[in-house]
């Protein structure tokens, strides 16, 4: 009778809460210094510093914007000339989906909804 080969464990499955690509993995840390394609690999160190400072400032502003938007009415301008208004709830960690309430659409008001971020071109709200 043949013995089945033993295994240490099963392969790890996807994390339900994130899309993965752990930024703390050795590969990410080694290879992803600037993962954004606009930064030239051979850029001047000073230029890179300036760019990084600008990126940090923009990122911080964006995150503060998301915080300020909470529970406010926001107008989303989306692809295919879609404009909707909703009360902003929260964003997921990868900024892939926005959780909103009272989404006003041309076919009615959706009490709770998720808006896919990649479909959003811009959004505006009164502070």
């Amino acid at each position, binding site marked *: 009778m*043949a*013995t*089945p*080969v033993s*295994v240490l464990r*099963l*392969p790890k499955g996807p*994390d339900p809460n994130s899309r993965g690509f752990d930024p703390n993995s050795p590969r990410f840390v080694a290879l992803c210094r600037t993962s954004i394609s606009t930064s030239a690999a051979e850029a001047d160190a000073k230029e890179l510093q300036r760019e990084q400072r600008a990126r940090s400032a923009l990122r911080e502003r964006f995150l503060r914007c998301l915080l300020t938007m909470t529970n406010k009415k926001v107008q989303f301008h989306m692809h295919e000339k879609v404009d909707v208004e909703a009360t902003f709830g929260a964003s997921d960690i990868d900024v892939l989906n926005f959780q909103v309430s009272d989404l006003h659409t041309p076919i009615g008001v959706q009490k709770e909804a998720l808006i896919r971020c990649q479909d959003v071109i811009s959004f505006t709200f009164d502070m």
Partner: protein
Amino acid sequence: CSWRSMAMRQTPLTCSGHTRPVVDLAFSGITPFGYFLISACKDGKPMLRQGDTGDWIGTFLGHKGAVWGATLNTDATKAATAAADFTAKVWDAVSGDEVLSLAHKHIVKSVNFTQDSNCLLTAGNDKLLRIYDLSQPEAPSQEIAGHSAAIKKALWCNNDKQILSAADDKTIRLWDRSSMQEVKMLTFETSVSSMEYMADGELLVITYGKTIAFYNALSLELIKTVEAPAPINSASLHPEKDFFVAGGEDFKLYKFDYSTKEELESYKGHFGPVHCVRFSPDGELYASGSEDGTLRLWQTAVGKTYGLWKCVLPGKSLFVSVYTCLVRTFHFQPV
């Protein structure tokens, strides 16, 4: 460990996560961080996994339709996918970010990088081969017309100087990249289900019906054909060219001796037809993707310690049999 002396039964490793059929898979080359595996799935969410363990690394999010083809560049820093949403996308395979979206006029079925990762070859239902210069993504692609039906697969060959394409017009054609002209054509009685190219040895592995055929990739001369017990959807030749594996409509994986054409083993495991099978770059395992939505990893040398498989000495076999049985029955993962 004397694994050869014991009769060992293959324990495939199941990689779950996809929710629809897995239609394509590809391995990267061997990198300082090991090798990687990308899977294309009809759920639109291609996944990257560690090649030797099957551990999930990340999911490439962005496609709005079934993903029909997926590939990695040699050092696994870039990925490319072909989808039913009429786009081919290029991704940063380290961060998971979408880098480029290349609009097509129809469903895209196949994507392939050149060895230097600078050019991407795409093909699909618009019957055209397209070459994109990734350093100038805004520039229009070069187009090669000729096929009279949807192209299933297109691959660079002969040091990226030529292109091989397989289409639903029952032909496989060889094209010259610089002249963009057709150089040779093979015609079949039935549609080719898959095509794999091996640079080392310039070999082409083609499947159609129940046949696995091996051709010289430069001359398109037939080397040999092997008949399987069931219709085959995909086959892969071991890097050392001693074995090849095939899978298809009867849900099983078959292992054959390449020189003698003898069927050596067959493995049950998948709950649906096998759509794709590929050997890892080191030849130690092969991965299969199925209609059942899973990927499975299989050992080439059953019983050897590799990845998550562990060779066990004869004295411990009773404990190990019970342990393995528990793992498989209850899917319990020890801490």
